[in-house]
């Protein structure tokens, strides 16, 4: 009887969003066998739309439609392999409910926030958008408008968005959903190495003898990389070691030699246990550390990235939110931080969580001293059914494996470490271990941060579509970086806004408290993908704001918007992505978009035509702006200087930022590159240039000569190039950065050279505080951080008695916008289920396939209960993926973030589960 409920539930929960794509020609099944039917297919190289692995995909078109896709056998990343999502790339564009007309909420022919969506022309759509934008912009200034972007932007898209916002509107309120995905990794890269992104590459999988995964279910979430790992394992069962550290037993454990199930948040303690063992066993690689590293630490009282006011909180969430101001140290936290249990600690450093200072090695040793095997094992053991003795043995094996002298080790991690209330700390800790051992930046040795989105690296990070960033690791707060960018962009001095903008979680909070009145959603679905969603949906619908959503499908974000712009998808445009190993890859437009759907680049360029310099480059009020050379709270008018530079106040942002003289020289048609392929963006603009190529080539000037060198556009489009790993110097890619042997930026004779320039002058001090006045330079060195264990602010208690974590399943990509439109993928996993230990289910009188309520302090949702299969949670732990808008997981997740990176912790909420 329960079964019928399940099926009914599945059906009702998907009816709204998942339409079958009937009548689409077969994909790669046909591609694997040659037949007559295929003779007129046009094959071209391309890239997978989904994760940060960056697999090469061959795409076949016929008569304006994609007829097949297959793994690209020439792509070094995947060597012809595909995961189940990648296999269906060709079908994602053909969902029945594809949007083909701009849709505006209207009543009686006029815009009405409470009206129903009506199809309108692009002109009508832009008219309303312009009117609403200017209303909020003129009222609230550049800080009152925002773009929520994505790590799924192509490079030209992200570049156009960042330039339009920062150089055009003088607003830094652009932030990507990549903030939710790898911002913690970025903070750790910048603080540790002074430059973003991994030192190693995927070749390390083949070259190492040990893979240790931390909070990364690679088997499901990076399946092609995992295929490379498991192929190595099968070839060398004895020698090649795998250790999987996780909070929930998963598929990645299946071929692991050791699985360590730990309690959420205690990874912080596990790393310090390894650090302590390295010190105690005299295993510090002093040659490496003395020459290339310094030690550092920072404050502990940095809060949890929650709102500091309870004004907007639901009653039930107020107790946890109060911890943003003050916490009481529990027993374990007190030991970890060398303090007394029960002590109240005001969170004094929430405004400056990133500050840090140098310490001596002796201080570092003091820091890790409390992290003994006994203490860490008691604190971190995550499976109540495992014996303490067995668990301790595993921790010792973990330390042994890292430390073993001639063993090469690669550590991989993803969202378990990034989406963490101390995500930046725990990222820094993995470098701490690798640097202490001197096992970093060399073939087969290194800590490697895996990425979630296809261009989180290539666009969000490298282009800098963040509230604080400019291209190529430059930041808005640095006057030299602003001057460099203004020069390259041919902007008057002081056009760029020095005040860091609002990060994505804060954009949503600012919609709620009315500080932001305009939001443009691009290439993402923030209203489904952001934690504590009940707040943001209500804010979007009820506050005085205007939300534009560029989307190919009616997602949750489209449905809460006021204006929906139908948008071209991956193979309907030219683009480039950058994957997790610094590989930049490009593709041509393969087919045209349906109906009136248009590319993001066209949308932004067309919208920019509606702004004259005099509207945006006059004096602007920026509440809270304090910066040397600027009047408090103000951006100066730069119109006079603009005129001196030859601009007219009547020039549009389109003329100045995009279709300027240099870019117009990049002509379309460009048959040498296009080889018969169309470019819809150029056709719609109709003024004879090639925006994607022009924007890319303009953008690459930021990185050339600054250790971010990219090749030019045409190189990436070449048929014999399957992406190149930057820095690309003299046409040669770089496999291991900072290593003299492989990286031309590393100084000759250095051996290793951590040449990143950011944050390379620090005060010195002890574990508690900086004690020097002046700063010491540490150019060419990496930092080894001591970071303590801190307890998760929300933990299971008597009322909400289970851990809850969200994440992905192999079949679906993020919020399911694309994969849920592929009938095969939808059939495979039609809805999100809640995984729970069978004994926990039994205790609650629940059985497999029951429909249950999952309730947290922030909301409750229904899901089908699952007690077996691919995930096997320990007692006390539950997991449900977030792809399914019918099982709206983010209504229950907590919107706490790492205070340094502002990346949300989707992994540590407390819930109760009961029968629905």
């Amino acid at each position, binding site marked *: 009887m329960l079964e019928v409920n399940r099926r009914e539930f599945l059906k009702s929960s998907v009816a709204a969003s998942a339409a079958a794509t009937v009548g689409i020609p077969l994909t790669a099944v046909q591609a694997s066998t040659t037949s007559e039917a295929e003779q007129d297919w046009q094959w071209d190289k391309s890239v997978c739309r989904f994760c940060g692995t960056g697999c090469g995909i061959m795409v076949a078109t016929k008569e304006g439609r994609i007829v097949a896709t297959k793994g690209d056998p020439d792509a070094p990343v995947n060597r012809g392999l595909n995961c189940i999502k990648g296999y269906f790339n060709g079908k994602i564009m053909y969902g029945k409910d594809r949007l083909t007309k701009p849709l505006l909420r209207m009543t009686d022919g006029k815009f009405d926030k409470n009206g129903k969506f009506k199809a309108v022309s692009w002109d009508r759509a832009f008219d309303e958008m312009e009117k609403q934008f200017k209303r909020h912009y003129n009222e609230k200034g550049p800080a009152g408008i925002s773009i929520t972007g994505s790590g799924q932007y192509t490079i030209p898209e992200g570049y156009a968005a960042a330039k339009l916002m920062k150089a055009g509107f003088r607003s830094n309120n652009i932030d990507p959903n990549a903030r939710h995905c790898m911002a913690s990794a970025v903070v750790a890269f910048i603080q540790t190495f002074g430059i973003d992104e991994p030192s190693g590459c995927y070749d390390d999988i083949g070259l190492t003898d040990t893979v240790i995964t931390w909070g990364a279910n690679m088997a*499901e979430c990076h399946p092609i990389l995992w295929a490379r790992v498991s192929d190595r394992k099968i070839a060398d069962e004895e020698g090649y070691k795998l250790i999987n550290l996780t909070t929930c037993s998963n598929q990645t454990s299946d071929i692991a030699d050791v699985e360590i199930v730990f309690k959420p948040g205690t990874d912080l303690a596990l790393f310090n246990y390894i650090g302590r063992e390295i010190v105690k066993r005299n295993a510090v690689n002093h040659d490496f550390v003395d020459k290339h590293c310094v030690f550092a630490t920072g404050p502990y009282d940095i809060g949890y990235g929650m709102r500091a006011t309870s004004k907007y909180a639901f009653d039930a969430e107020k107790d946890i939110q109060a911890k943003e101001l003050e916490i009481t140290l529990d027993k374990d936290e007190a030991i970890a931080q060398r303090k007394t249990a029960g002590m109240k600690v005001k969170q004094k450093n929430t405004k400056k969580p990133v500050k840090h200072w140098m310490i001596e090695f002796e201080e570092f040793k003091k820091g890790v001293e409390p992290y003994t095997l006994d203490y860490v094992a008691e604190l971190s053991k995550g499976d109540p059914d495992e014996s303490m003795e067995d668990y301790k043995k595993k921790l010792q094996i973990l330390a042994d494996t890292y430390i073993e002298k001639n063993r090469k080790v690669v550590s991989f991690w993803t969202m378990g470490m990034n989406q963490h209330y101390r995500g930046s700390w725990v990222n820094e800790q993995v470098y701490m271990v690798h640097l202490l051992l001197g096992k970093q930046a060399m073939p087969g040795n290194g800590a490697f941060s895996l990425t979630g989105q296809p261009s989180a690296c290539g666009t969000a990070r490298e282009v800098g579509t963040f509230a604080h960033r400019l291209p190529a690791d430059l930041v808005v707060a640095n006057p030299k970086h602003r001057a460099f960018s203004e020069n390259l962009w041919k902007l008057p001095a002081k056009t760029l806004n020095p005040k860091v903008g609002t990060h994505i979680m804060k954009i949503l909070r600012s919609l709620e408290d009315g500080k932001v009145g305009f939001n443009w959603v691009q290439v993402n679905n923030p209203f489904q993908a952001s934690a504590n969603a009940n707040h943001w949906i209500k804010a979007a619908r009820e506050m005085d704001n205007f939300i534009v959503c560029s989307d190919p499908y009616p997602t949750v974000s489209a449905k809460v918007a006021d204006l929906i712009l139908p948008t071209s998808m991956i193979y309907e445009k030219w683009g480039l992505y950058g994957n997790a190993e610094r590989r930049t890859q490009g593709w041509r437009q393969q087919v045209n978009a349906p109906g009136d759907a248009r590319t993001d680049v066209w949308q932004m360029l067309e919208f920019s035509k509606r702004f004259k310099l005099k509207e945006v480059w006059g004096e602007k009020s920026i509440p809270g702006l304090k910066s040397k050379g600027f009047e408090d709270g103000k951006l100066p008018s730069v119109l006079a200087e603009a005129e001196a530079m030859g601009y007219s106040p009547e020039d549009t942002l389109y003329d100045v930022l995009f279709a300027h003289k240099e870019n117009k020289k990049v002509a379309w048609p460009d048959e040498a590159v296009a080889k018969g392929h169309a470019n819809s963006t150029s056709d719609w603009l109709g003024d004879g240039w090639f925006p994607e190529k022009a924007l890319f080539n303009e953008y690459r000037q930021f990185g050339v000569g600054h250790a971010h060198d990219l090749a030019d556009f045409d190189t990436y489009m070449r048929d014999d190039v399957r992406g190149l790993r930057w820095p690309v110097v003299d046409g040669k890619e770089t496999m291991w950065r900072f290593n003299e042997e492989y990286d031309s930026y590393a100084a000759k004779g250095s051996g290793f050279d951590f040449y990143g320039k950011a944050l390379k002058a620090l005060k010195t001090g002890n574990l508690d505080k900086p004690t020097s006045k002046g700063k010491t330079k540490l150019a060419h060195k990496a930092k080894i951080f001591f970071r303590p264990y801190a307890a998760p602010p929300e933990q299971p208690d008597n009322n909400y008695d289970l851990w809850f974590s969200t994440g992905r399943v192999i079949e679906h990509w993020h919020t399911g916008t694309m994969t849920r439109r592929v009938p095969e993928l939808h059939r495979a996993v039609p809805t999100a289920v809640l995984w729970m230990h069978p004994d926990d289910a039994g205790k609650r009188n629940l059985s497999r396939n029951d429909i249950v309520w999952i309730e947290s302090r922030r909301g409750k949702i229904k899901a089908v209960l699952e007690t077996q299969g691919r995930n096997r949670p320990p007692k006390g732990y539950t997991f449900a993926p977030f792809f399914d808008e019918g099982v709206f997981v983010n209504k229950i997740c907590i919107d706490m973030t790492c205070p340094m990176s502002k990346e949300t912790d989707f992994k540590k909420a407390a819930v109760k589960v009961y029968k629905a």
Partner: protein
Amino acid sequence: MSDSIDKSRRGFFTGKLLTREGREEVKVQVKRLGLIPPGLRLSISASNCQNCAGNCEKICPQKIIKLHPESHDLAGQPYLDFNNNGCTFCSECNKACPNFTTDPLHSRPDLGNAFLDQEKCYAWLNITCMSCMNSCPVDLIKFNKKRKPSISLKSCNGCGFCITNCPASAININPTANS
């Protein structure tokens, strides 16, 4: 037989099948569309199922019992369709059948054995897939180290849940002798 197939194809191409005469002239479908619901092997026949109101179809809590369509040689007789769900062997269909005849061979709930076609299965075609992993109520689907699934047949009763989620439609139930 081959003659009738040719005829039907011709009929199809000339639009003949769209007319009543066409349908009557050509008996297109003779192959059973799915397994007989468990326990009903001796209960259903051309004569007694023709006039039944389709109780088994209506009562099935899983909604997996379908009746062969009018144009089919087995018109009115029930079969199992696993595309949306599997069988829990609840016997509601047996209780609802007006002609229910106890089947002495049907001593335990059993429809057959699941058969995984390796030529269709994505995982066996080197496409990373694990969609059947959750589906088996008794956890009989195992993946080897090379990430390829196989179904342990020892206690498989052919319930069909694994069919429901397979994106490649690579699983079938081979009926056992007594079903």
